C-alpha cells in the first residue's frame, strides 16, 4: 500500500465532514422552498455557475476512464476524444440553454419538457433512460472511489461507500441544489489547483515529459500517434456516447435554471467546456505513461482501468498520493451531490401529476426522502465493487438514440410524440445490431447480425434517430405550438404567496393542463 488505511480514511472523513458542515451551514436561514431545492432559480452568477459545472462534470471517473482510454483504447487520440466529448456536451448546452429558458421559463426538468412536448409514452421512455444513465454514473463514481481507496490505502469498500453516502446525503438532503452548488464552488476552487499541482508533481516524479516521452516511444509509439486508427475510432464514438448521455443529464437542465441570466448561462457553459478538455486530456496522458512504463496488462490480468493509479504507485512520494486521495474524494463528492439532487429532482418535479395537489412542504419532504433513497442505493452498489462498464455503455447507447429526437422538439413544431419515440426506437434497434456489449442477448432474437462495432453502434443510433426525426417532422399531419410549453410547465410553488405579495406561477392546474394538452393536440391536427 502507498499510504495507510487510517491516513486515507481520516483525510476522507475530515474532508467529507468539512463540506457537510459548510453545506448545512450555508443552507440554514435560507427560504428553503421546493423551487430553491430543485432549481436554485436565477441564483448563480458566472463564477458560481462555472464552478458547479466543472465540479459536476469532473467526477472520480476522470482518474479512471481517460487513463484507461490512453493506455488501452488508442492513446492520445482516444484521450482527446473523451475530452472533446465532455467539452462538446457543455458547449451544446451553451447554445441549448437559452432556448430552453426562453421556451420554458419556469421549468425544472427534462422529463417535464418531454411530457409536455411529446406526451406520456416519450416521457416514460426519456424518464427511464435519464434515470438509468444518472444512476449508473453515480454507481460508477461510488465504485470508482471505493476501488481507488482500496488500491492506494487498503480501505474497505463499505467504509468508503458509507462515509461518502452519509456525509453527502447530509447536506444534499438538507440544502438541495443550493447546497450542492455552494459546495461545488469551494470544491472546484480546490480541485483545479490540486489537479494542476498533483499532475505537475507526478510528471516531475516520473522524470519529466522528456523521460515519459522516451519511454512511451520505445515501448508503445502508436499511443503517441494521433492518427492511430483504434484511437481515432474510440475517440469518435466516445464523443457521440458522452454528448448523447449528457444531453439527458438532469444536472445540466437544473443548472440552466440556476443561472442568473441567459448571458451567465452561455458564458459559464463555455468556460467550463474550456476547462474540462485539458483536465481529461491530462488524465488520459497518464494512461499513455502507464503503458509506456510497461505497467499495463492485457488479457486475464487486465489492469488498464486503474492505469492512473499504477503510475501513482510506481515511485511517488506520499504527499502526491495524499493529494490524489483528497482530489478523488473532492471529485466524487462534487459529482455525487449533483446526481443525488438531479435524480431526486426528476421524480419530484413529476409528483404533482401523481399526488393530488401536494403542498410545497410535501414536495420538499418527498425530495429529501428521494435523495436519501438514491444515496443509500448508490452507496450499497458502490460497496459491491461491480463492474458497471457494460451498464454504462448500454445507458450511453440508449441516450445516443434518444437525444436528437428529444431536443429537436425545442426547434420544430412538426415533430409529434409518436414520431420522436419511433425515431428513437428505430435508432436504438440499429445501434443494438452493431453493439458489441449485448451481442449474446440480441443474437437470440436476431441470429444474423452485422460485424460488432461501437463506432457503428453509436453513430448508427444517433444518425438514424436524428434522420428519422427530421423525416417524421416533414411528413407529420399535426403541429405543436411551442408557445404552449411555457404555459403548461410552471412553478411548483404556484399559488403560494410570493415575496411581492402576489401569487406565483401561471400554469393551469395539472389535470386541466393535461386535458387541454390532449384537446389542443387534436385541434392542431391538420
Amino acid at each position: 500500500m502507498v499510504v495507510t488505511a487510517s491516513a486515507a480514511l481520516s483525510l476522507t472523513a475530515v474532508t467529507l465532514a468539512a463540506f457537510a458542515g459548510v453545506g448545512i451551514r450555508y443552507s440554514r436561514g435560507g427560504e428553503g422552498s421546493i423551487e430553491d431545492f430543485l432549481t436554485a432559480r436565477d441564483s448563480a452568477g458566472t463564477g458560481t455557475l462555472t464552478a458547479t459545472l466543472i465540479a459536476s462534470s469532473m467526477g472520480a471517473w476522470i482518474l479512471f476512464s481517460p487513463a484507461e482510454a490512453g493506455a488501452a483504447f488508442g492513446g492520445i487520440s482516444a484521450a482527446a476524444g473523451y475530452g472533446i466529448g465532455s467539452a462538446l456536451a457543455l458547449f451544446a448546452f451553451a447554445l441549448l440553454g437559452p432556448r430552453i429558458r426562453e421556451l420554458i421559463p419556469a421549468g425544472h426538468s427534462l422529463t417535464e419538457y418531454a411530457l409536455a412536448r411529446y406526451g406520456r409514452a416519450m416521457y416514460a421512455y426519456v424518464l427511464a433512460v435519464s434515470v438509468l444513465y444518472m444512476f449508473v454514473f453515480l454507481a460508477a463514481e461510488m465504485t470508482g472511489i471505493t476501488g481507488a481507496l482500496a488500491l492506494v490505502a487498503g480501505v474497505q469498500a463499505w467504509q468508503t461507500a458509507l462515509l461518502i453516502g452519509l456525509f453527502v446525503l447530509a447536506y444534499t438532503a438538507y440544502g438541495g441544489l443550493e447546497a450542492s452548488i455552494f459546495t461545488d464552488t469551494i470544491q472546484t476552487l480546490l480541485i483545479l489547483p490540486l489537479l494542476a499541482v498533483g499532475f505537475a508533481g507526478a510528471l516531475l516524479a516520473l522524470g519529466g515529459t522528456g523521460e515519459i516521452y522516451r519511454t512511451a516511444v520505445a515501448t508503445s509509439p502508436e499511443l503517441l500517434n494521433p492518427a492511430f486508427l483504434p484511437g481515432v475510432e474510440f475517440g469518435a464514438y466516445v464523443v457521440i456516447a458522452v454528448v448523447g448521455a449528457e444531453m439527458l443529464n438532469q444536472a445540466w437542465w437544473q443548472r440552466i435554471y440556476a443561472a442568473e441570466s441567459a448571458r451567465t448561462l452561455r458564458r459559464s457553459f463555455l468556460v467550463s467546456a474550456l476547462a474540462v478538455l485539458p483536465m481529461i486530456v491530462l488524465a488520459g496522458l497518464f494512461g499513455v505513461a502507464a503503458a509506456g512504463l510497461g505497467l499495463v496488462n492485457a488479457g486475464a490480468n487486465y489492469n488498464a482501468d486503474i492505469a492512473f493509479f499504477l503510475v501513482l504507485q510506481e515511485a511517488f512520494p506520499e504527499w502526491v498520493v495524499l493529494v490524489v486521495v483528497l482530489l478523488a474524494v473532492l471529485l466524487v463528492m462534487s459529482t455525487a451531490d449533483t446526481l443525488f439532487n438531479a435524480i431526486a429532482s426528476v421524480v419530484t418535479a413529476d409528483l404533482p401529476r401523481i399526488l393530488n395537489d401536494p403542498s410545497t412542504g410535501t414536495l420538499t419532504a418527498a425530495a429529501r426522502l428521494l435523495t436519501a433513497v438514491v444515496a443509500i442505493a448508490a452507496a450499497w452498489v458502490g460497496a459491491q465493487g461491480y463492474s458497471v462498464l457494460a451498464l454504462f455503455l448500454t445507458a450511453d447507447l440508449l441516450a445516443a438514440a434518444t437525444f436528437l429526437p428529444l431536443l429537436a422538439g425545442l426547434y420544430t413544431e412538426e415533430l409529434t410524440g409518436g414520431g420522436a419515440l419511433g425515431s428513437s426506437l428505430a435508432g436504438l434497434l440499429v445501434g443494438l445490431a452493431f453493439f458489441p456489449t449485448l451481442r449474446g442477448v440480441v443474437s437470440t432474437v436476431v441470429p444474423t447480425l452485422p460485424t460488432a462495432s461501437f463506432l457503428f453502434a453509436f453513430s448508427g443510433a444517433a444518425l438514424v434517430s436524428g434522420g428519422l426525426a427530421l423525416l417524421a417532422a416533414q411528413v407529420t399531419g399535426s403541429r405543436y405550438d411551442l408557445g404552449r410549453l411555457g404555459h403548461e410547465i410552471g412553478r411548483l410553488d404556484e399559488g403560494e404567496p410570493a415575496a411581492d405579495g402576489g401569487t406565483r406561477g401561471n400554469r393551469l392546474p395539472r389535470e386541466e393542463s393535461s386535458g387541454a394538452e390532449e384537446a389542443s393536440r387534436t385541434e392542431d391536427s391538420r
Partner: protein
Amino acid sequence: MIAPVAIGPGTFAALVWGAIVLVAGVFGYEIYAVLSESRME
C-alpha cells in the same frame, strides 16, 4: 503498412504543460469571478 508517426517530444511537452497551464488559468479566472460575485453581494 504505414509506420506509426508519433508526435514529437516538443509537441508532447507542449500538450502536457499547456494543459496544466490552462487548468491553472481557469483556476485564476474562477477566483476572480467568485470574488467579484462576493463583492457585488
